[in-house]
């Protein structure tokens, strides 16, 4: 096998790897009308409203009028129908159908990674991979000079010196507008412009909402797992260290989820000075990277990026533990570049799932 390029020949219809080996019974046959009456999939209507059941558009989900109809459904009289292909979800009295795949739908409190798409009047428009751009108001960011500083007209004129088109940031969804689009804020030190690393992207359905989306990983790397599937990998900073210091890596304590404040300040004096410095200076909007990122750290970051892509390739939900597990599994391949091979990605995915089964800790 050539080490510089791998070319795989595929046969038949253009299906994804995941379908390989899935032979449909009637392939290469014309479809006869006469067997349509009996062979069609039959679904009893009562069972459709059960949790996790798969429904497709136009299908009757339930004829029980007690349900409130949520996303992915529509109704006529007592009948509730599905409008997407997905699984039935029931939360209290709310019946909805969760599509198998769709664009990111923001929810209040989501930790997202976004890219500035447009600088507008007193607001930035941020691409968060959703149906619409999110809005970041000038008033929803910390400005150089501290929390107590009032924003002035000059701030409106120099918005590009804080954040400009293309800039990446992490933020929290503060609220939702009527039409479902999000308003963001970065009024906490854990949010803001992203530096010292590289970006990668996975389908948002693979990111599980959890208390904490910023994790320090072995090898001095920190990952920001945006709920929207945008991921930032960077060199672990002093701030990152401080955040995890009081409670450790694997057991998230109460301070992790809460906005940064007094609790974090407790950790050490040096950090609080850093914090004050950062908050009051232009530093938080700097475009300069840490000049001390070593080649080996860069390679570690690349390795993490590749294992995250491998997890996504195998359609495995991405969590902090799984990233670490996949990273460890990848160590048998000394060359980071070999991790882009399909077979290798599949092996890593398999290894992660096996390791989990052995530990008995499913996510």
């Amino acid at each position, binding site marked *: 096998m050539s080490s510089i390029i791998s070319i795989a020949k595929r046969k038949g219809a253009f299906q994804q790897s995941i379908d390989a080996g899935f032979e449909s019974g009637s392939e290469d046959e014309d479809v006869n009308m006469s067997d*349509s009456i009996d062979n069609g999939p039959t679904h009893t209507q009562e069972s459709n409203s059960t949790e996790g059941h798969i429904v497709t558009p136009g299908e009757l989900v339930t004829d029980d009028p007690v349900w409130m109809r949520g996303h992915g459904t529509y109704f006529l009289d007592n009948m509730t129908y599905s409008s997407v292909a997905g699984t039935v979800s029931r939360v209290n009295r709310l019946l909805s159908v969760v599509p198998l795949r769709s664009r990111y739908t923001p929810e209040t409190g989501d930790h997202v990674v976004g890219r500035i798409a447009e600088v507008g009047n007193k607001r930035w428009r941020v*691409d968060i991979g959703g149906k619409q751009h999110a809005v970041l108001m000038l008033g929803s960011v910390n400005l150089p000079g501290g929390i107590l500083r009032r924003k002035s007209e000059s701030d409106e004129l120099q918005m590009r010196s804080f954040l400009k088109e293309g800039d990446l940031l992490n933020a929290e969804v503060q609220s939702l507008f009527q039409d479902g689009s999000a308003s963001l804020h970065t009024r906490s030190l854990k949010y803001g412009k992203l530096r010292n690393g590289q970006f990668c992207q996975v389908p948002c359905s693979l990111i599980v909402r959890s208390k904490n989306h910023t994790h320090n990983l072995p090898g001095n790397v920190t990952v920001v797992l945006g709920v929207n599937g945008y991921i930032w990998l960077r060199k672990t900073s002093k701030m990152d260290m401080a955040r995890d210091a009081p409670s450790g890596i694997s057991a998230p304590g109460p301070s992790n989820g809460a906005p940064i404040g007094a609790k974090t300040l407790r950790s050490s004096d040096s950090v609080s000075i850093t914090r004050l410095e950062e908050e009051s200076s232009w530093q938080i909007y700097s475009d300069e990277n840490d000049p001390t990122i070593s080649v080996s750290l860069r390679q570690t970051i690349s390795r993490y990026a590749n294992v995250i892509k491998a997890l996504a390739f195998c359609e495995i939900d991405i969590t902090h533990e799984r990233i670490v597990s996949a990273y460890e599994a990848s160590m048998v391949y000394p060359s980071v570049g070999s991790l882009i091979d399909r077979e290798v990605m599949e092996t890593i995915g398999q290894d992660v799932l096996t390791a989990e089964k052995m530990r008995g800790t499913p996510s």
Partner: protein
Amino acid sequence: MSRFEIYSPEGLRVDGRRWNELRRFDCSINTHSHAADGSSYLEQGNNKIITLVKGPKEPSLRSQMDPTKALLKVSVNITKFSKTERSKTSHKNERRVLEIQTALTRTFNKNVMLHIYPRTLIDIEIHVLQQDGGLVGTLINGITLALIDAGIAMFDYISGVSVGLYDTTPLLEVNSLEENVMSSVTLGVVGKTEKLSLLLVEDKIPLDRLESVLAIGIAGAHRVRELMDSELRKRAEKRVANSTN
């Protein structure tokens, strides 16, 4: 066409099908997961099409933004090599293609729940790699699959099928050989109902035969819906199984 017998006395058509037989129907979804939000690849007989759905997304032009609903845009790219004889000219601005685009847009405008995606654009892009009759029906199926794959809410399936009329015999799903020698009708049927979202007759048909043609067309479209549905369920079950790992 003397070499071919369009419909033999034994009831066989040029490609060996009976009058009420559909062509081979092979579809898959999520074929272009990185390039689009929803995608499908469909082979209906020798029609081969790729459909990409991008969106709902932020429109690039202000004029594409409607504060009350999403804007649906369909562009059909019929490649120059899609027929046996290569076409010398591009099909891009042909009136026939514009008409097909309009018909498809209007078909799905009424079926997609556009009002729940205000201020967005749903961009549907179809590439016809090969065509062999009944193209518009195939395009409808490709779009239906890709829209569902994109997780875009719609009221029901729309399934497309064509029916030819040979003398007095309706022939389900004509190929291009049949299409060239007889009149044909294209239907776009909503779900399991008998409601037609799209109905196109482009050549002469006796008025009193139309009803029987529609009847077989609706039955055929329902069968197509089942085929699409079973493929979707197959995919869905795999995905659900994976995520509970």
